[in-house]
């Protein structure tokens, strides 16, 4: 017994070191595992409020660029509206159309933004109280930003598209060939579209949009343009590099989109799996 105590006292620094190291490494491994990433995160009161305070100050320095983005978006929306009016000559009751949409849009603001890591997250300043839930699409006026992951009362953590764990259904706008959007972990302006079938005709400059084959993202949301591509001859699939429309290093006001029929569809899927 005496010897055990002596041993413990003699090597206490080493033992504390090893114990804490195991704790630290297990937290790290957990964070890399997307499936159960219940890690200690910034979506809690203390850090969230601190980031919120910071954003209140730093917002003033970004007013000009945010204004620019909003103006651009207004312009695009106006153009779309005119086009829409041109096509739909017989007047339609817009209130009915909007009540019937399956998407609900919330606005929110990015208060913490990472893009230099290999797995990045964002923090939004709205949460449970504002109606946000895990698994909703996060978009900016220029394109896709990420997916909500962890929601607390006032804050929400978002998996950025600059995260190696993310995979989003996307397609070539002109030919409707689908692929999976991923990130390799290096350049915050470039993402990759993999598993595009060989039959697709890919050109540099082609537009990539979301595929709409998911219950998270609406279809036809802009992502970026083709920067370069390689054909994997063994597997017969394209690996396409995409330049994002979005500047992920400068995010401000964003939209969170909820698909209202998601629960229903998920339930149906689960039921089929159970009955098999």
């Amino acid at each position, binding site marked *: 017994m005496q010897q055990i105590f002596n041993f413990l006292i003699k090597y206490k*620094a080493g033992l504390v070191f090893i114990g804490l190291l195991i*704790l630290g490494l297990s937290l790290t491994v957990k964070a890399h595992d997307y499936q159960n990433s219940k890690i200690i995160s910034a979506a809690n009161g203390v850090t969230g409020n*601190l980031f919120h305070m910071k954003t209140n100050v730093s917002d003033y320095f970004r007013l000009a660029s945010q204004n620019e983005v909003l103006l651009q978006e207004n312009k695009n929306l106006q153009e779309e509206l005119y086009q829409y009016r041109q096509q739909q000559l017989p007047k339609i009751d817009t209130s009915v159309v909007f009540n019937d949409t399956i998407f609900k849009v919330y606005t929110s603001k990015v208060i913490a933004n990472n893009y*230099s890591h290999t797995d990045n997250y964002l923090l939004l300043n709205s949460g449970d109280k504002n109606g946000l839930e895990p698994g909703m699409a996060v978009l900016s006026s220029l394109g896709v930003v990420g997916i909500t992951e962890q929601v607390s009362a006032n804050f929400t953590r978002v998996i950025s598209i600059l995260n190696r764990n993310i995979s989003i259904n996307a397609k070539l706008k002109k030919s409707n060939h689908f692929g999976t959007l991923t990130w*390799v972990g290096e350049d915050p302006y470039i993402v990759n579209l993999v598993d595009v079938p060989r039959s697709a005709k890919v050109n540099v400059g082609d537009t990539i949009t979301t595929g709409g084959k998911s219950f998270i993202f609406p279809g036809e949301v802009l992502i970026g343009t083709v920067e370069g591509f390689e054909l994997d001859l063994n597997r017969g699939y394209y690996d396409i590099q995409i330049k994002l429309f979005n500047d992920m290093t400068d995010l401000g006001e964003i939209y969170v989109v909820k698909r209202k029929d998601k629960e229903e569809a998920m339930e149906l899927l689960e039921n089929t799996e159970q009955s098999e």
Partner: protein
Amino acid sequence: MQKIFAFIGLVLLQTLILNEVYLFGFVIPYVYIMFLVLLPPHANRVQTLILSFILGLSIDVFESTGGIHASATLVAAYFRPQLLHLTFGLSYDYQTLSIKHESFFKKMTYVALLVFIHHSVLFALEVFSFDLWRLFLEKLLLSSVFSILLIMLMMSLIKKKLR
């Protein structure tokens, strides 16, 4: 008491200002490791380990990075006595060491070694993949240079104030 102020000050400095720096688009200097330099050379070993783990963990909480900063700071703290012995030699062994009064070159070596150990563990855990070794080296090299420069700068500022 001073320790606590340094602790909180460094966490705030790192999370609110330096994490937004992004030199050349992706380089972040990690200066909070300076805490280990500010601690007295013969501070209690177990206490130092626990403190540095908590320091790293608080950075992790802000950055949503799991435990990478906690592990990296812990490893750096564990090797601190060896580094002190290596750079300052006898004056450390005889417990007369005061980092403030050491030569610039020795201080720089000490800071550089500490930063290098910390950043190696940090980026290895962050990248977490052998395929990205080029990215790992790039980050390690660039971040280290700027962390060392900033820590030396801040040390000289603090020294002036103490006089």
